[in-house]
């Protein structure tokens, strides 16, 4: 038969067969995705093809410094902070002194101009010792500092950045009793009165509220616009009408305060608006995207720290004449968890490097946050089992990691939200 005819016939047929039913060899292009890795090679970006665990000299030095700091200045207080649900003053001070609260900020604002990846490394190392302390570092760097540098006016930056890099904690007030995942249905209202606003409302689950000096309050200036009315206000702690309530009695990350914050006729000048009126929802989403990578780093460090303290025990503990580690059943479990940890690490590092390079990273950030939270849950649960009875007691640090990991699947976007986000991107790609 004439091959030209054959091809025409085949192409006529192709048009009527849905792609998923067409035989593989007939339509090789039907399953091409618009994913970025199918684009031509990245050597033109100027990036070396090095393993993900390659750090610059500064990043390596920073990692070493934070490891030392965590072991010497944080570790002795971990149990006490967890029992009393109170963050140790000297640790927060130490974080500020070491420059760990202003990692990415420019030198003109008191920062050091280090890379975004440095934040991830610092958070990971701190989380190995205490995830609550890691959270303080993470929120300040990825939320507070980023909000100011991305959306602040020159005046706001000059006023607040030197403070937040020296001794002032920032606190992000978005969630309310009635709006968690559905953040944009928030009810806190900001009424315009001339050149100032009156804010009324009640925020809940606000991290660091107990000790924060400056609050980012997300309030709606015009509910008739729905979420397009949400505006971000920068409110100082001692503003009249702003009340920080009693902190929650939590299962985990107890050293880091989580409080309700009420705003009772809080009067703020128009100049306290961060960015533009009605753009608050965009800022919230934008910040939470990089925040996700930070939380992934926290969960990663948590899981790794727990794992690091369990395996040596399994090698020491002897039952039936050999160490617990030497039983093949145990080895297989431990190897599985180690593999998942490595995968979680690479997801997190890659998302961080993508964000650092200014490339789209929302899907990867969601994947990293979702996966590391799951891995942390698995790792800590298994570690308690491997430790046996002692894993179940408060004398050993393992049970604390188990309690701490749960929040990873909940805050900064629940696991379900992450999966929906990933699915949204997948839908666009195919």
């Amino acid at each position, binding site marked *: 038969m004439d091959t030209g005819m054959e091809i025409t016939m085949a192409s006529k047929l192709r048009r009527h067969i849905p792609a998923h039913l067409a035989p593989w060899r007939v339509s090789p292009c039907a399953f091409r995705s618009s994913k970025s890795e199918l684009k031509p090679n990245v050597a033109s970006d100027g990036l070396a093809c090095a393993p993900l665990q390659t750090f610059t*000299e*500064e990043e*390596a*030095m920073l990692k*070493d*410094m934070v490891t030392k700091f965590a072991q010497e200045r944080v570790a002795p207080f971990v149990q006490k902070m967890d029992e009393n649900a109170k963050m140790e003053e000297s640790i927060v001070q130490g974080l500020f002194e070491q420059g760990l609260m202003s*990692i990415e900020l420019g030198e003109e604002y008191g920062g050091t101009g*280090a890379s975004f990846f440095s934040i991830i490394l610092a958070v990971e190392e701190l989380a190995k010792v205490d995830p609550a302390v890691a959270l303080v570092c993470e929120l300040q760097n990825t939320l507070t500092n980023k909000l100011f540098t991305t959306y602040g006016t020159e005046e706001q930056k000059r006023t607040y950045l030197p403070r937040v890099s020296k001794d002032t904690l920032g606190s992000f007030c978005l969630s309310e009793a009635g709006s968690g995942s559905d953040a944009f249905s928030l009810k806190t209202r900001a009424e315009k009165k001339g050149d100032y606003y009156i804010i009324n409302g009640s925020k809940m689950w606000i991290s660091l509220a107990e000790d924060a000096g400056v609050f980012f309050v997300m309030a709606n200036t015009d509910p008739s616009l729905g979420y397009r009315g949400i505006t971000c206000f920068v409110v100082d702690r001692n503003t009249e009408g702003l009340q920080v309530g009693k902190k929650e009695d939590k299962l985990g990350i107890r050293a880091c305060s989580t409080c309700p914050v009420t705003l009772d006729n809080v009067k703020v000048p128009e100049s306290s608006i961060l960015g533009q009126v009605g753009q608050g929802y965009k800022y919230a989403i934008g910040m939470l995207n990089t925040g996700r990578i930070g939380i992934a780093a926290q969960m990663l460090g948590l899981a790794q720290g727990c794992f690091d303290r369990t395996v040596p025990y399994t090698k020491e503990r002897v039952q039936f004449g050999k160490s617990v580690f030497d039983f093949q059943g145990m080895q297989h479990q431990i190897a599985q968890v180690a593999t998942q940890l490595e995968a979680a690490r690479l997801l997190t590092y890659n998302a961080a490097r993508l964000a650092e390079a200014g490339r789209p990273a929302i899907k990867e950030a969601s994947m990293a946050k979702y996966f590391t939270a799951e891995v942390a849950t698995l790792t800590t649960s298994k570690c308690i089992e491997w430790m046996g009875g002692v894993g179940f007691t408060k004398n050993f640090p393992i049970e604390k990691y188990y309690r701490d990991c749960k929040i990873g699947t909940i805050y900064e976007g629940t696991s379900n939200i992450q999966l929906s986000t990933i699915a949204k991107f997948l839908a666009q790609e195919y």
Partner: protein
Amino acid sequence: MAALRVLVGVKRVIDFAVKVRVAPGGAVQTQGVKHSLNPFCEIALEEAVRLREAGTASEVIAASLGTKACQETLRTALAMGADRAVLAELAEGAPAGPREVATALAGLVKKLQPQLVLLGKQAIDDDCNQTGQLLAAMLDWPQGTFASRVQLESGGVLVEREVDGGLETLRLRLPAVLTADLRLNEPRYATLPNIMKAKKKPLEVLPAADLGVPAGPPRLKVLQVQEPPPRAGGEKVESVESLLGKLRHAGRI
């Protein structure tokens, strides 16, 4: 008192927290293993930086003998507060024992003219405890080893040494060589601003041969390296008498 220049020797060693293993070839496994600044060198460096901060010293120079990899150790020294660093570069596998290090440092002393040399008392990989002493002999300078306290005076230095019998205080004329012991000070963490600044500080690399370091043959030959025997189980006893009995029986007392 005129401000003085301090030379600090730093060594790149396997990190103290790493579990050291013997490679199949019969040498200590160093490939892919975490290295860091020798803790005693860190203490020496901290002392030098404190002297500069107090205004007693004008400049702190960190120096090392080794392969290119030592540059990262020198950067850490810069991040901790040294003003500049010098690497006497060796080829991979070239000998770098105490005699070679002392020769390199002596060469640097002639070049840089410091009034004080601060070293760690020993390195945690070979535990030689020889470099400081060899260097002092080569330069014909007084030495204050195992220093647990250092106080500079006009033209001299008061050194408190930890010796077997207790503490010994010496007064030395400058220039002098001191080696730092554990209790001299507690080294600082490099703060992030200093880590970022370290990149801009000068790090000079020169061939070790320029300082007179011989390329070979090594003065120390390693005959054998083996892991310690696996730990045998212990035994719990009920009373002091029974403990003494068991120790006598084992020939220990």
